[in-house]
């Protein structure tokens, strides 16, 4: 039987509009803020799978962003609390041309609900500010997922580490809405979405999963991570942490519904998400 290498391409065009009511102050545990985010993007990816599980390629696209006043009257508006100096991009709207390269080695046994294998990805992107010329930067995303099965794959240890590093050009800045964030349903599950943001981020997760019965997998998890303004500050000290228990409902080796309960020093968060964790 034969299998062959392949060339693939993808294109996406999306328009998003959302009210984000969660951004806190970077590194500091601040109150909730709200702002509106509207974006329109058109992206492509062109890649090749030269062998087995390896994919390499290039991607690029155009991102039009518009931020504004949120509509949640229960919390403060972002622009009322922060200034453009503390929150780059707050006062100037701009659009981006972006492009870069990616590499992916994915040998997970079932991407929808992996029990063995791993996924290692790297992506390096250039963001070119087309309008105000203040936010030119590069961004490096690194992610490792490792699935360590035992007892005939009925038990799995999942380890994941992810970092997002940014490289502003000269004195340019990263607009706050493109800064990496942590907190939410996929990482630091004991904190609200977008709880922490800054120019650089690192987050790690460890999960112990076990099969309760066909269709239900349970998990104990521990998340830790932080955001920092400088890459040199990336380390494993002073991490924010959360822990919890999860219920994953599966059909045909794929998780279609996930219920995670995460706890941190800021309280307990319950997440119900359609689909698995760690795409």
């Amino acid at each position: 039987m034969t299998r062959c290498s392949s060339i693939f391409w993808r294109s996406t065009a999306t328009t998003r509009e959302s009210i984000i009511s969660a951004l806190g102050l970077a590194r500091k545990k601040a109150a909730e803020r709200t702002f509106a985010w509207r974006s329109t993007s058109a992206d492509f990816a062109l890649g090749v799978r030269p062998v087995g599980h390896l994919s390499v390629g290039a991607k690029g696209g155009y991102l039009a962003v518009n931020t504004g006043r949120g509509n949640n009257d229960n919390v403060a508006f972002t622009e009322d609390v922060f200034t453009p100096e503390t929150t780059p991009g707050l006062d100037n709207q701009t659009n981006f041309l972006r492009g870069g390269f990616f590499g992916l080695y994915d040998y997970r046994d079932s991407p929808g609900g992996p029990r063995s294998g791993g996924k290692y990805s790297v992506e390096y992107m250039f963001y070119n500010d087309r309008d105000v010329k203040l936010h030119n930067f590069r961004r490096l995303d690194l992610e490792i997922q490792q699935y360590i099965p035992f007892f005939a794959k009925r038990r799995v240890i999942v380890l994941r580490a992810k970092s997002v590093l940014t490289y502003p050009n000269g004195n340019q800045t990263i607009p706050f809405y493109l800064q990496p964030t942590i907190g939410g349903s996929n990482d630091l599950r004991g904190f609200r979405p977008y709880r922490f943001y800054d120019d650089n981020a690192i987050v790690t997760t460890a999960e112990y999963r076990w099969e309760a019965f066909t269709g239900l997998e349970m998990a104990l998890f521990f998340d830790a991570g932080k955001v920092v303004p400088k890459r040199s500050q990336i380390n494993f000290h002073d991490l924010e942490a959360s822990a919890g228990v999860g219920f994953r409902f599966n059909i045909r080796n794929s998780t279609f519904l996930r219920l995670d309960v995460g706890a941190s020093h800021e309280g307990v968060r319950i997440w119900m998400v359609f689909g698995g964790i760690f795409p």
Partner: protein
Amino acid sequence: MMANWAVRLAHARMFRKPTGAVVLLSALLLGLLGPAAAEARKFYDDDPLLKEPPPMPLEDARFRKLNDYYDLFSNMFGGVGEQHGEEDSKTQAGGKQGLIPAAGVNTLGEVLDSAWFTNRIAARPMSIDEIRRGPGDGNAPSTEGQWTIVGAKTQGVTPGFRIRDSRGHNYLLKFDPWRYPEMATGADIIGSHLFHALGYNVPENYLVVFDEDTLVLGDDVKVTDETGEKRPMSRRDVTAALARVPRREDGQIWGLASFFLPGKILGEFRYYGTRMDDFNDIVLHEHRRDLRGLFVFCAWLNHNDSRAINTLDSLVEEDGRKFIRHYLIDFGAILGSASVVSNTARDGNAYFWEMKPALAQILTLGIFVPRWARAKYVKHPALGTIEHPSFEPEQWKPNYPNPTFQNRLPDDEFWAAKKVMAFTDEQLRAVVKLSQYSDTRAEKWITDYLIKRRDRIGEVYFAKVLPLDDFRVEGGELKFEDLGVKYGLMGSRSLQAVWSRFDNKSEAHTAIAGASGFRLPAAVTGGSHGEYFAAKVHGGDENKTVTVYLRKQGQDLAVVGVDRTW
């Protein structure tokens, strides 16, 4: 013969629960047949029967689609089918009150040839050629001309087509999943041949290798697209579907062509109750020995997907009469295969859902590890996930409870186990070779798997009863085979026999003084025509006995019945 069957129908409790029509019919039959019909007795003159009488002709029967989810939930939570009763109930089997004996069997405990089952292996010698031939080998798709697609399933993990060859024969064309070349097709070939040799009706399956150009698109073929809309199928759809199936090194496509079953397809049969529009279907399915014993075969072959959806009834016509024949179909999910993916360790070892094991997992945070999860599994693309060292047939489970399997008794298991044990190593090797695995290691592993699991079945089920079989009278002695000894599962043992006269009407035994051993006592050899005798055999364990019934027929003695206790 007809009178004989009518009486048995009227008296046998294991048959279909009587409707008003059945009660009326029984009363009419009893009235017509007079005192003879009302006379109960253990043996009739034509016992032991070898096959059911010809089926009563049916005019027609309706297609009945069983909902897959209904079947799942009704079997898992519904408590369907008649189950064994309490100890004080009137039924009795194996010397124990409350157990419901298997039905659809003759007085020797053998299943009758019928629309469900045909005795093959263990009932008569089967050559390797006959086993390899399986349900048939003369209807492979013609290699002359093209195959026309007349229907398609392009969604899902693996596509499938309904095709018509140049002779007009119809087939289901199935493929392996991309990551598991040879797995589902190999399992289907092995399964269809073994289940056929075991006695079941199965479709003819053929491995086929063909070029993409062999397939041409027929007229008005519809395909369901990603949005669920039906639209005409295009050549591009065919190409896209075939891009998802594994190919051989030379680019040819490898698949399995399943010859369409004859007759009018009527949908699945259920593993409980009867089919109400089939008046030949008079035995509750949950008590059929050929279905109770199927548990053992499914455990052997890890057919954990042995549920109603993988059965089929068809209205066929033979000798000018129409009747319903019952089939087992689709063996692509046996052994280590789950058809579209590889099996997991759970498959064949645990139900989808069962309260106690689930709670044990939830409450212990998975610290409690089931036996089967600690086993070492062989993983191979052509085989899926298999293992045999930890195989315990009594702990094997289908995907969800099956009322027929749950009703099995040690004599049902013994009946099945002796058929499994009748396969020789050479016969199993020959069947595995039919799957044409490209890796010889896969061929060896699956052969070992079948042999080792076969032997474990013999060890387990021959130990639950006194495994004596093939009783006959030769040279003035009662002869038999001790299957435990024959297959080397246990050493030779001392057996005793105690003789009695047997009253066929009252079913009372009267001991023959001083008659013991296997030499026929003088009272037996000198008995009169039509007189019955019984020899109760045991090997030290008084609970495990076999009572053999003999009938004097002229100067001869015929073995007419076998009862077992355990």
